[in-house]
């Protein structure tokens, strides 16, 4: 296990690369879902205040 984590002496370069990329993936997922939730909530609010849309 330790040999794996050491990455042949390149641990300080390999792991931050993977960490950053996975972090960006997770951020993108959270971000996209939040965006859609916000737009849906806004659309619902618009419908509630305006009544029947034309």
């Amino acid at each position, binding site marked *: 296990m330790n040999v794996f984590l050491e990455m*042949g002496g390149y641990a300080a370069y390999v792991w931050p*690369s993977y960490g950053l990329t996975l972090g960006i993936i997770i951020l993108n997922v959270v971000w996209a879902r939040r965006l859609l939730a916000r737009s849906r909530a806004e659309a*619902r609010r618009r419908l509630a205040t305006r009544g029947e849309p034309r």
Partner: protein
Amino acid sequence: MTWTWFHRLGSPPHAYALAARLTPWFAWTAAALIVAGLYGGLVLAPPDYQQGDDFRIIYVHAPSAWMSLMVYTTMAVSAAVGLIWRMKVAHAVAASCAAIGASFTFAALVTGSLWGERMWGTYWVWDPRLTFELILLFQYMGYMGLRSAFDDVQRADRASAVLAVVGVVNVPIIHYSVIWWNSLHQAPSVMQLGRPTMPAAMLIPLLMMFLGFTLLFLALLLVRMRAEILDRERTATWIREAVTS
């Protein structure tokens, strides 16, 4: 050939419903491919005979760099479709691309920099590929900045679409930079025909990562596109059904 499918895709309620249906398929396939690709790249692939374990950065660096170019191309093509056919859905797609593309361009630059420090002895060098990739990041940021300068979404769509289309010239420059110029950046090891430069144990995880990232992009794009469609279809009747279900 019939163009019905094109017109159907251009219809906001149809595009919204189709996107909602397709998203989980893309997302879960992407997750499976990325997990398998990470395992293959970190555990199964042997260390490189010259670069040792440092080469494993390729499994996050190359797919991120691929995303930076593919997302920009998608953005430019859909912006052009939006401009030419005045298609709202196409503009919604273009607007959804920028933040995704910018974040992966950033990932490509930073992971490349970490890789370069060991292999070239420096985090950064004004090499053609690195320089144009940095410019691509600024293009994404400029696109987002320009959009946010407009209150009216239709005007933001048209102005930013022109910027996206003009900027696409940078995509082939980045892609061919390592061939055109004497670059420090290594030559392509995947996207060339007939001359495999990697053994299968290294190549297969990389291809899984490429496909996984591409499907992840499609899933993210579809979710963001639905938000963009809702913001553009303020008065449409179908929205009631779409947001209350």
